């Protein structure tokens, strides 16, 4: 459950819901309060608040330009906010946070001419405590690449190395900013498997992504952002349940007759297809058959986060 951080202390007469929220905040590893980031020409983050409970994988979702990376970089202590604050275990971000946080940026260059092992060892030397270099290499399946120049790795291997570096201090909280963007499908799936093994270690993970499949697979809780604001927050299943009690029927746009648009159906237009949302699948199918709509390429599926985003913003998630 995602809980909005509250400025006012809750007294004994607070409602049960507010008390639950206060308990969750006290359990929060990170609290984001009224965060604003104003660039000269853009309001990148327009006052967002949420808290991240211990041990969850927390997703920040949204299209490019939604403010995800700006929000996560403020949470990482890399960018200063224009207003608002981020607290780690109840305190402003400081030395303890830097010791206990692991970070994988969207784009990172490493030092030239170092091998995979040497790159990991460099970062291991920057922390007081952490994992053994060999253990991190094993954890991220980099054994066969340990002696290779880090510039000569493929995209997926490079991301595994950057993840290894993010894990080298055995972090309590792990930030991953679009970790699989640019990877081929196989490398992405390998990375997800690796992420699930790290999740099993009960790390708190903050993940930004615009891959809904990734968020559905990995995230326990999500915040959906658009134009610097939060437009929905909660566990993915609950959000889907709240917005979609029905199933979706998909038909190719060119096979959907214009006359059928007059039918008493809940029609949603997507780019190359027409989607129909319904509680009563049988009745809807009957209506379509009676209207002689060709159903050869009909696809029936439950709603996903992509649909949720479309429902909330009226636009596709990936522009």
């Amino acid at each position: 459950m995602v809980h909005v951080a509250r400025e006012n202390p809750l007294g004994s007469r607070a409602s049960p819901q507010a008390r639950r929220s206060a308990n969750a905040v006290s359990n929060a590893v990170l609290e984001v309060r009224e965060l604003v980031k104003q660039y000269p020409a853009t309001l990148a983050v327009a006052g967002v608040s949420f808290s991240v409970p211990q041990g969850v994988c927390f997703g920040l979702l949204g299209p490019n330009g939604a403010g995800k990376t700006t929000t996560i970089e403020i949470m990482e202590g890399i960018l200063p906010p224009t207003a608002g604050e981020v607290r780690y275990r109840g305190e402003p971000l400081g030395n303890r946070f830097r010791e206990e946080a692991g970070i994988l940026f969207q784009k990172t260059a490493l030092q030239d001419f170092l091998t995979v092992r040497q790159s990991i060892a460099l970062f291991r030397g920057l922390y007081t405590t952490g994992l053994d270099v060999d253990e991190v290499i094993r954890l991220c399946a980099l054994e066969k690449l340990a002696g290779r120049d880090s510039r000569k790795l493929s995209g997926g291997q490079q991301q595994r190395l950057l993840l290894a570096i993010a894990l080298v201090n055995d972090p309590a909280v792990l930030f991953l900013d679009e970790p699989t963007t640019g990877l081929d499908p196989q490398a992405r799936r390998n990375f997800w498997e690796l992420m699930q093994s790290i999740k099993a270690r009960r790390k708190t993970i903050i993940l930004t992504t615009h891959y809904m499949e990734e968020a559905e697979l990995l995230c326990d809780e999500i915040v959906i952002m658009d134009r610097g604001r939060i437009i929905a927050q909660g566990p993915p299943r609950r959000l889907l349940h709240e917005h979609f009690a029905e199933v979706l029927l998909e038909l190719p746009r060119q096979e959907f007759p214009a006359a059928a648009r007059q039918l008493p159906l809940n029609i949603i237009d997507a780019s190359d297809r027409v989607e129909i949302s319904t509680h009563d699948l049988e009745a809807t199918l009957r209506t379509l058959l009676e209207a002689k709509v060709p159903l050869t390429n009909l696809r029936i599926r439950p709603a996903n986060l992509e649909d949720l985003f479309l429902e909330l913003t009226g636009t596709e998630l990936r522009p």
Partner: protein
Amino acid sequence: MIRRLLSVLHARNLEFLRDRGTLVFTLLLPVMLVIGMGFVFGGPERPLFKVGVLAGHPDRQAHPFLRERYVEFITLADESAALRKVTHQQIDLLVDLHAPPRYWVNTDSPKGYIVEKLLLAAEPAAVRQPVTGAAVRYVDWLFPGILGMNMMFSCLFGVGYVVLRYRKSGFLKRLHATPLTAFEFLSAQVLSRLGLILFVTAILYLGIGAIIGFHNAGNLLLLVLLGVVGALSMIALGLTIAARFSSEELVGGLLNVLTWPMMLLSGIWFSLEGSPRWVQWVAHVFPLTHVLDAARAVMLDGAGLPQIAPNLLYLAATALAFLAFGAWSFRWRIE
């Protein structure tokens, strides 16, 4: 803190040693300098008469000797420093025209012999005070300048562009997400470059020294100490430029703005004695001037620690000040 600093230092050293192109260039430049010096200074010395005149002498018109043509007269205030110049044959004669007039001539100097004749023709009563000593050739005087110039370029450009590259690639941003502080990062860069500079300077010292037949008059360890403190100051100066900016053009321009005045005014090629006071004042702001003054004092005159202590203190103080300013103004990422 030390552990973090050593981690970054070790990684930087590995990076440098494996970057074959830069490594070869860094080592080739001194070798080329050595060969160039051999060509330029392999020939005979050029004749030139120089006469030192102790300060406070009476009206120049009253002394026909001071109107001699083809002789350069240099006013010198410090008698002991002036005498050293006669001993080293950096000037051919030293005269004191207060009554009774006196002069010092190096009996080992052929040019001193000729200028002495000119003086005695004009001032027959001048009292002769002979000194002896082998000539300090221009090449000996220039030698510390060449070492210092190479050191300056390596200090300023070596660290400046490395830090800039790290910032542009995003590597600095990644380091910023760790407990590493700006001071620790900058100190590691300084120490890595310092080791390299000392190594290259040692090659130059031995190589050029062997070609020109140089003999160091002072303490070698004192020279090493001077090299360490001088290089620290100039590397830290380079870091103040690289601490903030993200444009190669801007950083390159700013480094040039620093290096060219030092090239011209720090006394690499010629002594600043006799130049306007403001030029000397400006020159003494530059760390390189202090490095060269102290290096020449040790290498040519055999000066000890007390004599060059003011230079060492100035260099140490500027090293700390530049490093502190660099850490304060440091930017981990492109703004």
